[in-house]
């Protein structure tokens, strides 16, 4: 079996895929962080009147 040298195109596609992967991971981290802050601050709590009813 002969091993072929990686084509330059492979490197470019790998870079592109890595970029997309890192962007998606960053997006997940941002949404998670934002959710933690919003929940901690009580942004999603219903108004008091509704809870008492």
């Amino acid at each position: 079996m002969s091993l072929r040298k990686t084509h330059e195109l492979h490197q470019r596609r790998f870079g592109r895929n890595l970029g997309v992967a890192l962007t998606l991971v960053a997006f997940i981290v941002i949404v998670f962080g934002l959710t933690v802050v919003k929940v901690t601050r009580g942004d999603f709590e219903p108004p008091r009147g509704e809870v008492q009813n």
Partner: protein
Amino acid sequence: MSDASINASTIREDEASFGDYFALLKPRVMSLVVFTALVGLLAAPVPVHPVIGFCAILFIAIGGGASGALNMWWDADIDRVMKRTKGRPIPSGKVEPGEAMALGLALSAMSVTMLALATNIFAGAFLAFTIFFYVVVYTMWLKRSTPQNIVIGGAAGAFPPVIGWIAATGSMSVEPWLMFALTFMWTPPHFWALALFMRSDYDDAGVPMLTVTHGRPATRKHILFYTAMLALLAVGTAFSDIGGPVYLVVAMVLNALFLHGAWKISRRDEEASEADNFKVERGFFKLSLLYLFLHFGAILAEALLKPYGLGGWG
């Protein structure tokens, strides 16, 4: 094992890299958007949680980048003609126009939705309007139909500090509109100076820039007029709630320099400009970049000094 991912007939040697897609977002314009939106956010009288502030700036920047991608998709034909833009991802053949459109639309929807969720619906709606204004009103309509393209289109680039302010406060007031007016009035002299020394670029592309429709001497006079109006506005802003002594000093110095530059441009003719390769026009253009950066920097400084009792007029 055969390599299934590389088929000789479908290989494109100029296939785009991740950086080419990123270039569609106009990173240099995005840096201006980030900075001015950040100043709008921090100058607002309401403290913002750092994570929410970071998200707001990020999504405003992505919205700005998305409109850049849509601009490149629509303008691919004239970008091919102009020296300044022919290296962009679409004219250079690295990215297909359809890809730029898809990326622009997807990022527009994502950024507007996420900004509305992270801050408030008003901010999200305003970002959507900004993208619409830049892509539809400026790029698709005004850019190719009127020499006032850059004047009205400049509004799109002036909205980010307003969005930043709304993201922080959820409401509108006079101060963000002063920041808007600063960028709005700054845009025409900035781009007309560029049009003066880029010479035939806009002419070749058939874009009705003022230099093409009204001639270069008229453009020089317009630069002086807009710079004078800008100076009045910029110095006047010093006495508003976002101004203060630091801002006043910065505005006085920069506007004196800017007016001097505009005056020199208005007094020059084409022969003199060509003799020194548009040295004065190039210098004015570079100064315009510093001008906007330092004005917003001074507004930021006033905002950051306020908690220590130093910013503003106390």
